[in-house]
């Protein structure tokens, strides 16, 4: 039996400075299958994948590829055995063409040193065509979307004859339509007999695409089997290691008073004629595909860009922000979609990140009180159970979920009344998601309100009192009560 496996990892162990990160890593990958590797942050997934990739050496255990024992000392070794990884963290060269990226370091040559562009473009076109990917190999990679870049990476993996492909959160930054294209490419890979190890925090996706699953928790293998034999609840419960009463905790009650009103907001080329209102105690969902203009709308509402047309009121007073500072003074806070890009100072401490938007509150006459600042940071760390060694810990060492909590803490320090959350649960694990949901309900009591965007339908349905649907920069409709269901959302948004 084990001879039929593409990859078999057993009893893998790994410690960092005596602290075990992985105690019993197990993974059995069949050829021609998509294998979901599941687990919360800190479950040991990344450690296991890095060992499979040859990035980290293992302390113990065995790895077999098609029945043969292997030892990798570098990613290059792993690649030699046909293991390739596709992740957000990859940095292709944006100024080179698609074909040049695919063949980077392996360019077809003439006379030994002149790059044979014609052959390179032809070969690239072949590989892309085989996957049904409609991308011209001569365009610069930088002009492509994230999803397209990932597909180029898949093409690259195929051109390297990779048979084992690791995909780490491939859909966390792409829209629904692009996800479909990506899945199509992944299926093509599977049909070619490749094994795909697929990591994602999106449960829906796993049930759609994966054939097998392996669950890890606290550095240990918990279970494996066929996706067809389990349901969503079982998967989440097993990942968390506890019975989950309810995935979405919702206990806010919308009131009558309007705290935000927007009329006819327009920014040319981004969104047009958007009107909405937010009531106290309400969680307003904004649903729309990636590129539907929802993030651009929130950016404008927060004063980052100016609207070309339209008006807004906060608590009945006219609101015309000239920058984020004005929006903050009016009681707004904005947790952006891109944590690392515009949410965090990743190289700075938790303390500095938490106080970043509200330094003045812990200062007098321009002097920062370190004592007050530390106190505030400690309080937030405690309230939100941010896992950290101390408030001086650098944010880049933290998991996505904990980083998101730091961003949230930063904004709570500004004491907002209107909290805007753009894709608040992207790339964070199931446990942290649940804390985020609980927090949203908690926050929106006491006369405050939340605006949340999401591209995950269960989340929008589970958390929103009312939903505004964006389509191509326009308001496609508003749903509440019994109209708020999956069919209507899907119909309005596409």
């Amino acid at each position, binding site marked *: 039996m084990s001879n039929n496996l593409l990859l078999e990892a057993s009893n893998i162990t790994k410690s960092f400075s005596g602290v075990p990160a992985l105690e019993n890593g197990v993974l059995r990958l069949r050829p021609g299958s998509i294998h979901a590797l599941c687990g919360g942050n800190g479950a040991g997934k990344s450690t296991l994948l890095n060992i499979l990739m040859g990035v980290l050496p293992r302390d113990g255990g065995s790895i077999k590829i098609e029945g043969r024992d292997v030892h990798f000392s570098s990613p290059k070794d792993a690649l030699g055995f046909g293991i390739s990884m596709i992740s957000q963290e990859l940095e292709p060269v944006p100024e080179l063409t698609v074909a040049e990226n695919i063949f980077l370091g392996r360019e077809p040559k003439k006379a030994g040193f002149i790059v044979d562009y014609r052959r390179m473009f032809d070969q690239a076109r072949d590989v892309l065509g085989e996957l049904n990917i409609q991308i011209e190999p001569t365009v610069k990679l930088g002009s492509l979307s994230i999803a397209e870049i990932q597909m180029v990476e898949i093409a690259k993996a195929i051109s390297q004859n990779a048979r084992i492909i690791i995909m780490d959160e491939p859909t966390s930054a792409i829209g629904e339509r692009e996800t479909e294209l990506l899945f199509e490419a992944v299926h093509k890979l599977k049909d070619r007999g490749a094994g795909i190890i697929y990591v994602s925090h999106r449960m829906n996706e796993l049930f759609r695409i994966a054939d097998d699953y392996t669950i890890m928790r606290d550095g240990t293998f918990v279970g494996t089997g066929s996706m067809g034999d389990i349901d969503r609840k079982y998967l989440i419960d097993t990942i968390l290691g506890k019975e989950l009463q309810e995935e979405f905790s919702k206990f806010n009650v919308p009131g009558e008073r309007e705290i935000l009103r927007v009329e006819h907001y327009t920014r040319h080329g981004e969104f047009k004629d958007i009107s909405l209102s937010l009531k106290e105690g309400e969680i307003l969902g904004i649903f729309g595909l990636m590129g539907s203009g929802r993030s651009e709308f929130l950016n404008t509402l927060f004063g980052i860009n100016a609207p070309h047309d339209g008006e807004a009121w906060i608590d009945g007073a006219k609101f015309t922000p000239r920058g984020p500072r004005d929006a903050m003074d009016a009681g707004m806070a904005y947790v952006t979609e891109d944590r690392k890009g515009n949410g965090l100072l990743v190289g*700075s401490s938790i303390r500095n990140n938490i106080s970043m938007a509200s330094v003045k509150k812990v200062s007098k006459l321009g002097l920062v009180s370190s004592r007050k600042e530390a106190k505030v940071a400690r309080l937030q760390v405690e309230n939100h159970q941010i896992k*950290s060694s101390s408030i001086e810990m650098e944010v880049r060492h933290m998991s996505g979920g904990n980083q998101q909590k730091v961003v949230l803490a930063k904004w709570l320090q500004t004491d907002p009344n209107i909290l805007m959350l753009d894709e608040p649960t992207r790339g964070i694990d199931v446990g942290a998601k649940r804390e985020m949901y609980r927090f949203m309900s908690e926050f929106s009591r006491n006369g405050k309100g939340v605006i949340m965007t999401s591209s995950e339908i269960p989340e929008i349905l589970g958390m929103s009192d009312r939903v505004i649907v964006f389509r191509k920069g326009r308001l496609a409709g508003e749903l509440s009560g019994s109209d708020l269901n999956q069919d209507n959302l899907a119909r309005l948004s596409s």
Partner: protein
Amino acid sequence: MSQQVLAKDKGVEEPAKNSGISKRLSDFMVSYGIIIAFLFICAVLSVISPYFLSTNNLLNVLRQVSINGVLAIGMTFVILTRGIDLSVGSLMACSSIVAASFAAGSEASFILVPIMMGLVTGLTLGAVNGLLIARFAIPPFVMTLGMLSMARGLTYIYNDGMPISNLDATFRFIGQGVVLGMPVPVLLFLGVFLISWFTLRYTTFGRYVYAVGGNPQAAMVSGINVRRVTFTVYAISGLLCGLAGLMIAARTGAALPQAGVAYELDAIAAVVIGGTSLAGGRGRIVGTLFGVLIIGVLNNGLDLLGVSSFYQQVVKGGIIVLAVMLDRSRLSSS
């Protein structure tokens, strides 16, 4: 790529225990590594040359480094915001000649006039840098490269390329005087150091400087006025160039239009040796202080040993590269 995967893995899998210790260790190395390096160089030099540790020589070193020190402190503010100021040498020369023109010969103005003129010249030119960089998004490298040439040209134009000598004795006190046994330039340098250290560490403005350099997008979204902070750091650098201009004219008793050529290199070197990242958002003014001292002590020590200045340049360049190498390995290991 492997480094990124590795970094991500460490963060995700073992957030708490390990990074606490390594963070403290790396903090220790950042804070004290450069001091240890400095003391080590001093120890070696004092063994080789007994004269090195004499009060006279040490004061001499301090006097020599004070001008580069003042420039390097301004440079630290700029580099912390991901910027660079290549124009410091020219700004210094320009301020120096303007100040000297009010302090020369029998018609010298009251001492405050040349001082103000020098400082205002530096501040104004620095503000022009800041304005164009912050407001019109001209890359700092390009803007200050242009200013390097423009300010130098203005310096020559101002007095037809002639030096201004015969400076007033009161004015020369800025460069030659001694108070409580300490040379005035050294006191000025220390004063600038303390104020800057305090500003970066304890004021909201200091926080904003780090935030803007660490992630300008995040700073902007967090309500920080990124343009104002950017403008201000170049203005500060310019103001300190003005001060350095006063110091150099007063020390030599004359303002030379060709003074300060290539001074930006020593200032940048001190900042980099001091551990401040050219990528912004990371670094300390204390590091710059010791960066300045290391360069000064090396120059002095090699002089004492009779090493030719040609070799000194090779050594200094090597030290810069070494410092950055150590910094890189520290970053990737933490």
